[in-house]
């Protein structure tokens, strides 16, 4: 074999090793809503400390985008989404096991703004000066954006505000835009805004018009590490797991 062919072979084997999925036990892989980023590492640490469980890797993103990845066959063992819709869409396609579907927490939609920005409320967003933008998640793939659409539609201002929206690819994107002061207001979850003191919560979505935000998880059907994933979900909703969610500002799961 020539030097060049040998070098090409080594390169090929090395590249293939990066894509290897089989032999060695791979970590349990979760697909989780971006809004779980502040809390999930702590839950995982508590779970692993307890049981000496295998490593857990998390891919964070917009629940809708993660749903599309699971549909495309991404190697995911369990999903933890910011809305029941995305999980139920996977149930309907037979991609997750309905018996493992469980509510893991609830959240509250909030209106945030930069610290020195104008004080507005959900029902007075139209009073923002002309040219000021409102950051929301893309309603097509980000549950927080869809909840925002529901809230503003119920308040009757969605259509009038539509030209002002700048879309984030997930709640973290929305938060980044508001933290930099590039939008005067943004709609995220209460728990997203909590860790940051350069944004302030202008209004909380409560009352008849407010959407109820529920985080729902389920195990992917036929996933290689589905048993460990199921054990992790059970831990997340155990009293111990719940206390961590509570400490980060999440509400209790739905019965």
């Amino acid at each position: 074999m020539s030097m060049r062919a040998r070098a090409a072979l080594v390169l090929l084997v090395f590249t293939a090793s990066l894509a290897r999925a089989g032999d060695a036990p791979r970590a349990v892989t979760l697909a989780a809503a971006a809004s779980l980023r502040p809390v999930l590492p702590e839950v995982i640490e508590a779970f692993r400390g307890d049981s000496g469980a295998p490593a857990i890797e998390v891919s964070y993103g917009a629940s809708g985008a993660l749903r599309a990845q699971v549909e495309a066959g991404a190697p995911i063992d369990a999903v933890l989404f910011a809305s029941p819709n995305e999980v139920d869409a996977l149930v309907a396609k037979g991609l997750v096991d309905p018996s493992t579907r469980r509510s893991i927490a609830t959240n509250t939609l909030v209106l945030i703004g930069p610290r020195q920005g104008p004080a507005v409320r959900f029902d007075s967003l139209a009073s923002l000066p002309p040219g000021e933008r409102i950051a929301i998640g893309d309603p097509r793939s980000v549950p927080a954006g869809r909840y925002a659409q529901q809230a503003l539609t119920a308040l009757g201002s969605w259509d009038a505000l539509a030209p002002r929206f700048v879309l984030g690819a997930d709640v973290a994107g929305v938060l980044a835009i508001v933290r930099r002061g590039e939008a005067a207001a943004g709609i995220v979850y209460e728990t997203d805004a909590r860790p940051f003191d350069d944004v302030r919560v202008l209004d909380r979505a409560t009352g008849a018009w407010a959407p109820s935000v529920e985080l729902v998880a389920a195990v992917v059907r036929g996933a290689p590490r589905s048993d460990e994933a199921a054990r992790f979900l059970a831990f997340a909703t155990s009293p111990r797991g719940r206390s961590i969610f509570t400490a980060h500002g999440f509400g209790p799961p739905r019965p």
Partner: protein
Amino acid sequence: MSGDPLFPIALSLRVAALAVALVGPPGIALAWLQARRRYPGRALVDALVLLPLVLPPTVVGYLLVVYFGRHGPIGRALDALFGARVVFTPAAAVVASAIVALPLLVKTAQPAIEAVPSELEEVGRSLGLGPTALFARVTLPAAWQGVIAALVLAFARAIGEFGATLMFAGNIPGRTNTMPLELYAAWQAGEEGRALLYAGVLSGVSLAVVLLAPRLAPRAQAFLERPRS
């Protein structure tokens, strides 16, 4: 929120055309400068021109937001002077696309200008043409095919800009949602049809460009060899 599926196509064509119009004149001037002049710092200018080609577009986007943002030095100055905000506007998409298109433009136009025999320019100069007239009436007519190839490649690079555009122009439906942004959003939402539409249009534009550009550039070379032999 999905909006008119044709809007991103029209917007992308417009943004790329404006980006080429914005970066074209200074880019061609830079190509001429690098082709014809030896001056201190020339290597540095060369490196700066190439930089957007090797920098990740997210770095370009981040720097643009930092400097042109509401709290950035340029952003604050523009706001104070003209009451203008660049971030999250179609103008931001044009600027981002223009920056990433610059290296391709200069590096394609430069050899075409270098290939113009300097004797031609000397004859022009001896006939009393000033530098601008010399460039417009002698150099450019001789190098035009290479320069058009450079503009076409710059257009292709501009129309495909994603990372810097997303950060600097944002995704505002009906305003800054160019084809690459809409393709990404459609993929995230699992809207295969929409994703395919933009993938198809962008692939078509790119294919047309890579077919067209080499036809222009070598012919420019061949054209230039003739008067010499």
